[in-house]
């Protein structure tokens, strides 16, 4: 499927802070989960959202899926603001769906697969008879690689991989255009992981989905994503075409991530030993004023503590938020 340069989803100026009260009379403090995040999802692409804990990637995923309201900012689906006064805009609710990480909690343990899928089928087509729902449900099961025998089972009778397939079936039964996949294979065994990833890609082609793929596994990013956005402490620090990011990463955090990831070795990632992992991320409650990576950055200078660098275009679609990008980019040129 050709990726058009049409942004099917636009994320603008998203801010989300979570209040944390310190002490009885303490001032209200906030965990800055997301701070002024902008993002576009192009139709037909797989955009990977990468980050470690505290990066905000899961929060962003939930906001995009319409499960969490941002404090500020907009999410536009084909130009339409998805959040309206009461909640999610009804007409487009089904266009954005999500699958989550934990197969143990993604299905209601009291319901059979038939009921679980039936609920979503009937949400799309309310008037169907029981037999019609059954037909659709079985078609869905086959689409995700399960046999019709699974229809009368309960979640605890299925393996983790099978439960994830059901969760995927439920998501696609809504006929979405955008799928947010939040660490969907992280909790699965390696041998099952590949099966689910291949299923996801097959469905993407078959159904014309645009996918936001949230993960911390750089190998998976290399395998399936067209573009990748690297997040650190609530901000996007680097974004661009996957090959460009892997072969010539600009932001020091991206380099550190690529160097530390065991699976990035199989991808043709640029591993720079100067960026060996060091230091600890600061508390997300009071991030440092300037660049948030300053506490661990091997090339930080004085100016870095003054203000957070904006995302700057490096080359083509590749952008990074680092004031020393010219030195880094020069380094690559010299190598060529």
């Amino acid at each position, binding site marked *: 499927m050709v990726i058009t340069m049409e942004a099917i989803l636009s994320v603008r100026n998203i801010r989300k802070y979570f209040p944390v009260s310190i002490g009885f009379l303490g001032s209200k403090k906030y965990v800055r989960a997301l701070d002024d995040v902008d993002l576009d999802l192009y139709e037909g692409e797989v955009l990977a959202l990468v980050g470690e804990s505290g990066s905000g990637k899961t929060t962003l995923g939930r906001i995009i899926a319409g499960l969490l309201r941002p404090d500020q900012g907009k999410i536009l689906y084909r130009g339409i603001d998805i959040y309206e006064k009461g909640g999610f805009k009804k007409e487009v609710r089904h266009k954005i769906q999500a699958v989550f990480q934990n197969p143990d909690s*993604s299905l209601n343990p009291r319901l059979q697969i038939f009921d679980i899928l039936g*609920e979503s089928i009937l949400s799309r087509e309310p008037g169907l008879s029981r037999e019609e729902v059954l037909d659709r449900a079985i078609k869905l099961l086959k689409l995700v690689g399960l046999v019709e025998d699974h229809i009368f089972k*309960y979640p605890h009778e299925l393996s983790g991989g099978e439960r994830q397939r059901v969760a995927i079936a439920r998501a696609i039964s809504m006929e979405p255009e955008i799928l947010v996949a939040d660490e969907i294979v992280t909790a699965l065994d390696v041998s099952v992981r590949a099966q689910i990833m291949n299923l996801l890609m097959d469905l993407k082609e078959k159904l014309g989905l645009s996918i936001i793929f949230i993960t911390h596994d750089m190998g998976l990013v290399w395998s399936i994503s067209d573009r990748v956005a690297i997040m650190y402490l609530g901000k996007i620090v680097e974004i661009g075409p996957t090959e460009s990011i892997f072969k010539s990463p600009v932001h020091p955090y991206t380099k550190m991530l690529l160097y530390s990831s065991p699976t990035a070795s199989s991808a043709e990632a640029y591993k720079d030993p100067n960026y060996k992992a060091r230091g600890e991320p600061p508390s997300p409650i009071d991030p440092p004023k300037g660049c948030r990576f300053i506490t661990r950055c091997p090339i930080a200078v004085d100016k870095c503590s003054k203000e957070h660098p904006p995302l700057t275009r490096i080359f083509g679609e590749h952008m990074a938020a680092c004031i020393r990008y010219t030195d880094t980019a020069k380094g690559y040129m010299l190598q060529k």
Partner: protein
Amino acid sequence: MERREILKKIFDARKKRREEMWEALKANRAAYVSLYIVGALVIMAIMGSLVTPYNPYDFDLSRARMPPSISHPFGTDELGRDILSRILAGARYTIGISVASVALGVLIGVILGLVSGYLGGLWDIIIQRIVDVMLAFPTILLAIALVASLGQGVASLIIAIAVSTFPVYARLVRGVVLQIVSEDYIAAAKLLGKSSTYIMIKHVLPNSVSAIIVQATYYMGLSILLASALGFLGLGVPPPTPEWGSMIGSGRTYLFSSPHIVVFPGLFIMISALSFNLLGDGLRDALDPRTRVLLRRG
């Protein structure tokens, strides 16, 4: 497979699950026995007054305080009334009041807990403050105060006990709801565009049932004790109604001289409270699909 076959399998699986729950309950001997005892108590409550060997209100001072004998298996009380008959007739009050007050308390508490836990925000703050204030009062004092202001009688007793106990349900249900709300299948229901009310009723409530049932049956026991305590204090149903608690109350003067007057109602109170508790434990384990799986698969 043909459609019909599949539908049949779906229903068979549901039936099997219900049977498994039943088996799980039976496996717990204490709970299983308690189920029958509770059943017997309920029957006693409904029909007790019809099968009394004597009129529970007939008093005869000449036959007062007689120890258990063949004609009076439980003896007679301080006014010469047959204790067995009074126990049978009194079941209606003690058990009936407890069941009604627990039902009412659970209803109020569940609604408040659901709203508080699921909707959160201002709802949560307001409801929790109310609950906090009410929990600050010792239950029995609250009940006494309520009965005192509402006047004596079965209805006020039920209301008093229900009001004294619903805060505990509200808090418990809120806790359970908060846990369930963090599960991904709730988020999945939101993705379908379902309303909060729908999600609360169709997804949150059924998964909270097992916790609610345990607390409800435990509180059944507590209600029985509470009703009896109020009766003992003279605040329950007015005499000569044979409520078990008031039987103990009026008979306590003779605790050492004619202990049977107090022992039998006390025994029945104890058995009732205990059976409800044990039944509750058994039900919780039987109803929670995950515990059952653990017991089954390991």
